[in-house]
């Protein structure tokens, strides 16, 4: 994949915050520095967040994710619940039932134990709610100033009961694109909780596990082609990534993309595009158009995806492009976020 910039990294280049933002720079870093160290036949080569493999005739999904969000506590969640939801969702996007997680903690000298307790309680509660077990872990402490309070890594294993090939490879011309709910809440909730931002909102993060609606889609026998949770880089980056991987084109309708008024207001004020703002409990589902209405009905049974809507469709169109029909009756292309928008959002 070559998301629009072929420029190679030079010898003197250093890691910058924007290398972690889920946009073009991050993709370049992954392509040029990280992926060469991974095995070619893993799904990481197709940029999925998890890997599905067979071990002793059992189909399993495996994934890992690290959490560095600042601040540690924000409306609608904290680094503990996020660490569970993030990994559960990566497994869910493989169509897997999440089973077991590991938890790795990197703590900074000076972190109040009470804060750690709060984070661990929240992590435990999120695991219970998602019905996953935390089966192993590791704890390290670094000197004051060498970490930022607490970083968490979780890895997860899930079981795959279906025989679908869920991933960008099966996306086809004519498929419908479903979105599981309103976008941009996590990014704005975290941003509003940061020091120095003098605006108040009641926006809560959308951080939530998505495996239940996903498993329901699969159990209903719906021919799901691709699932993708929207995290850093937002809806725009998720769609653009998929289109670059498939060589197809996505066309979406701005008027059909739900954005809460408070999120829209904050985005207007801060000059952000809701399409680029992070989410932690939203996904897109790509499947054949004739299955779209049944899939929506399934999704809408779950609180986490009760506002699911179809936002557009896949076409042969211009290779790798995402086109948005705007609310004023014009159209424009949608690109990934470039560089830094909001560092350390998850």
């Amino acid at each position, binding site marked *: 994949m070559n998301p629009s910039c072929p420029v190679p990294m030079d010898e003197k280049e250093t890691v*910058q915050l924007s290398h972690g933002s889920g946009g073009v720079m991050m993709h370049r870093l992954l392509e040029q520095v990280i992926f060469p160290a991974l095995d070619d036949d893993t799904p990481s080569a197709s940029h999925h967040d998890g890997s599905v493999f067979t071990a002793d005739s059992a189909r399993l999904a495996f994934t890992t994710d690290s959490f560095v969000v600042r601040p540690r506590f924000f409306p609608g969640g904290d680094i503990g619940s996020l660490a569970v939801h993030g990994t559960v969702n990566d497994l869910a996007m493989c169509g897997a039932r999440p089973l077991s997680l590991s938890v790795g903690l990197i703590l900074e000298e000076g972190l109040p134990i009470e804060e750690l307790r709060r984070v661990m309680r929240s992590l435990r509660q999120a695991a219970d709610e998602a019905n996953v077990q935390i089966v192993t872990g590791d704890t390290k402490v670094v000197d004051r100033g060498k970490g930022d309070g607490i970083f968490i890594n979780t890895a997860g294993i899930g079981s795959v009961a279906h025989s679908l090939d869920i991933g960008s490879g099966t996306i086809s011309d004519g498929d419908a694109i479903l979105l599981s709910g309103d976008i941009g809440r996590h990014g704005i909730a975290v941003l509003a909780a940061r020091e*120095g931002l*003098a605006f108040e909102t009641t926006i809560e993060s959308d951080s939530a596990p998505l495996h239940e609606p996903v498993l329901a889609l699969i159990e209903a026998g719906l021919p799901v082609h691709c699932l993708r949770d929207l995290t850093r880089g937002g809806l725009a980056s998720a769609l653009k990534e998929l289109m670059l991987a498939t060589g197809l084109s996505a066309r979406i309708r701005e008027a059909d993309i739900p954005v809460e008024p408070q999120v*829209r207001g904050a985005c207007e004020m801060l000059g952000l595009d809701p399409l680029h703002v992070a989410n932690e409990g939203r996904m897109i589902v790509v499947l054949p158009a004739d299955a779209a209405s049944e899939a929506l009905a399934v999704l809408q049974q779950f609180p986490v995806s009760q506002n699911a809507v179809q936002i557009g469709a896949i076409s042969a169109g211009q290779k790798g492009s995402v086109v948005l029909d*705007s609310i*004023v*009756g014009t159209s424009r292309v949608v*690109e990934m976020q*470039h*560089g830094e928008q909001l560092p350390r959002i998850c």
Partner: protein
Amino acid sequence: MKYLDDYRDAETVRRLADAISREVTRPWTLMEVCGGQTHSIVRFGLDTLLPDELTLVHGPGCPVCVTPAHLIDAAIAISHRPEVILCSFGDMLRVPGSKDDLFRSKSEGADVRVVYSPMDALELAVKNPEREVVFFAVGFETTAPANAMAVHQAKARGVRNFSILCSHVLVPPAMTAVLDAPDNRVQGFLAAGHVCAVMGWEEYVPIAERYGVPIVVTGFEPVDILQGVLLCVRQLESGRAEVENQYARWVRREGNSPAQDILSEVFQIIPREWRGIGDIPCSGLGLSDAYAEYDAARRFGLDGEHEPAPDSGCISGLILQGRKKPEDCPHFGTGCTPERPMGATMVSDEGACAAYYRYRRTEPEVTA
């Protein structure tokens, strides 16, 4: 948010676009002054709704874009001092100076922080009395009053470890510089609504009269911009050259007097170099003598002569004057991208090149 929806209503947009098409009989070239308007035009594809006779060219109103490279170099040099916390609006971090940008400084260990208000920088100074907090003050008449207020409060509260690196610019001198250019093709302006909310619109009357150009104070939403275009076209078609106010919901003739008062107390008008354009007399704001001690360039000994910026091949100066469009540049989208910008117009959201790159790099099909 319903209020905003009214200004993005598809039906109203279509009606205005039709009205413009009906009234245009000849080719006209209009310039929208403000980068926020450019962003809106490109984001919503408003120019694609206009008749072929009408050309919109993008103006110099992108503060990040016109900040001279030597000031960015100064900010980088200051940021590397161990006692300094350098605060800036986020956009400035990626703008290349003559060699590097502030993101690079940050990754090399400089304490560079993104703030959303100069008052946040001032509070940071209060909380960190052992550090020197420097705010990189860029912007037009819109951001200048808040920056002036931060300096004013620093003085009133005796916060001595606060200073600003000042790169403020003024809109009317830039408009006359565009009009004075020998190959100018701009025949009418959409003036920057938010600048006029602060300064009022009286200062544009002499420009309209002297150069015979209509100037319409215009807002930023699709309906605002198309109304501004319509008013401007009507003037051109009927041979008038007046100042009109489309953005009356925010802009009064006399502007915002308290904001103007704080500006004239803290700042004075000075000549300013505009990146890619050159020196424009009386086009900037610098700290007045009474507040000179809060000038970071002076405090850190960086207010002397500077090397002229090397020619990078970037044509942003011509783009900022409406003489070229982003697609006219051979580097657009190849050697120059938002992640590796050659010039500032590719960095800021308000920069024409960044807007074209983001919304227009592959020509979208026209919706039926």
